[in-house]
């Protein structure tokens, strides 16, 4: 996989890439201690790994992926709720990435193999279309960060048929950044914030975070030059001890963000505290439907009796899976004994190997391009 990946290292402008590489080398040359930068976006990790950007970084600059894969941080009881409802006879619609994520007892793919009606959709709007044609109850198992939750909110506000409801496992990124920033093991000195989530929220939302934690944030795009440029700006901020937000992706991100989308989002959703799989209990990290929209909330419409159902469940997920530590940024896939052996995309052990935005899946595909042991 590494040889295949190296053929993909084509850059739009190699000279600019070299210039950024030299700038980073220069900025890191006299550092007394190494710098750790975290990003929280599966698409950033895809681009970093696909274009081998880590191999361009000086050895004392580390870029790690945090909890940026919405499928990966969906908590196992949330998957269990979806499996439970599918087995009760509803049509369960969800994104393809969610299909094979292990629940306590089984995944949605396994439930489907046993006869449950599970449908893969690319858009929440497709779930609404299914409900229009179906006579049965249709539940949209909604995952993703605020960018995706906006679309779910729009569907709920569009006057959906009464047989459509939403099982929300949507997550809200800003609160989890606060959690990982405080984790003593990570020692994060800068955040590369995800461009398209910030398209919705705007970059000013990170100012409070910077104030509280004293860690600079740069909002960056997804192409190699966008990422390298954001890293140069972050290292400069860290070196100068400047604590502020810089928007390095102005073509998609504004100070206030997409106000129309925010209005839809907060009309339908409110934040609740809950567990992100493998990370921690995250105060205000979950997006749940407001009581006003209980009519569209699968948790209000159906009685989901997980505890009885799970009573005889055998322990299933291998205890050796390092997904949690990998999503918290304190381990890499190469630290996991299962990576590329028992755990491969065809038969994933953890969610990080299932989703195209999971660190393990991305590194399996492209290699991690980090110095050190490779599998």
């Amino acid at each position, binding site marked *: 996989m590494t040889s295949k990946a190296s053929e*993909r290292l*084509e850059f739009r402008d190699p000279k600019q890439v070299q210039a950024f590489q030299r700038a980073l080398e220069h900025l890191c040359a006299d550092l007394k201690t190494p710098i750790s930068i975290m990003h929280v976006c599966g698409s*950033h990790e895809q681009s970093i790994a696909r274009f081998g950007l880590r191999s361009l970084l000086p050895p004392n600059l580390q870029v790690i992926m945090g909890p940026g894969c919405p499928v990966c941080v969906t908590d196992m009881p949330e998957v269990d709720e979806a499996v439970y409802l599918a087995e009760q006879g509803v049509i369960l619609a969800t994104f393809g990435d969610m299909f094979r994520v292990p629940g306590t007892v089984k995944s949605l793919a396994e439930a489907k193999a046993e006869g449950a009606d599970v449908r893969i959709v690319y858009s929440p*709007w497709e779930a609404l279309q299914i409900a229009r044609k179906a006579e049965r109850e249709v539940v949209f198992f909604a995952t993703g960060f605020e960018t*995706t939750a906006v*679309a779910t909110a729009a569907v709920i506000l569009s006057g959906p048929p009464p047989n459509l409801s939403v099982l929300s496992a949507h997550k809200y990124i800003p609160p989890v950044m606060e959690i990982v920033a405080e984790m003593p093991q990570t020692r994060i000195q800068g955040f590369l914030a995800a461009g398209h989530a910030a398209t919705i929220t705007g970059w000013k939302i990170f100012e409070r975070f910077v104030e509280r934690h004293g860690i600079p944030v740069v909002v960056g795009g997804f192409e190699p030059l966008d990422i390298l440029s954001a890293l140069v700006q972050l290292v400069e901020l860290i070196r100068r001890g400047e604590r502020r937000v810089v928007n390095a992706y102005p*073509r*998609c991100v504004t100070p206030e963000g997409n106000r*129309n989308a925010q209005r839809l989002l907060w009309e339908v959703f409110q934040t609740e505290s809950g567990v992100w799989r493998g990370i921690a209990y995250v105060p205000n990290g979950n997006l749940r439907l407001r009581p006003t929209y209980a009519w569209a909330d699968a948790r209000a419409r159906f009685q989901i009796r997980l505890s009885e159902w799970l009573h005889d469940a055998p322990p299933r997920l291998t205890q050796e899976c390092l997904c949690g530590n990998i999503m918290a940024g304190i381990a890499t896939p190469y630290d996991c004994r299962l990576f590329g052996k028992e755990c491969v995309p065809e038969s994933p052990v953890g969610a990080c190997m299932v989703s195209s935005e999971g660190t393990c899946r991305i590194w399996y595909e492209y290699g991690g391009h980090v110095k050190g042991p490779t599998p």
Partner: protein
Amino acid sequence: MCLGVPGKVLEVNDMTALVDFWGVRKQVLLHTVDSPVAPGDYVLVHVGFAIRRIPTGQIEETLAFYETLLRTAEEDLMAADVQEEMGAGEET
């Protein structure tokens, strides 16, 4: 799934727009867009919904990256995600 995809607006009909993504035409929903769009505009689309009208003059650099990805002939994780986003709109 965090990666929106840019496309060119061909027609606008109330809350939907016909959008062209490198030859693939889809109906995209406009409920979530940040400002009014007209034919000729470029929008950033996520799960079948437009989330941003990309300012004129900043389109070329936005498109170039996706074109690099979509030129990949072999199977590619990131290109597959982009193609999935392009496929998320309604068939026309």
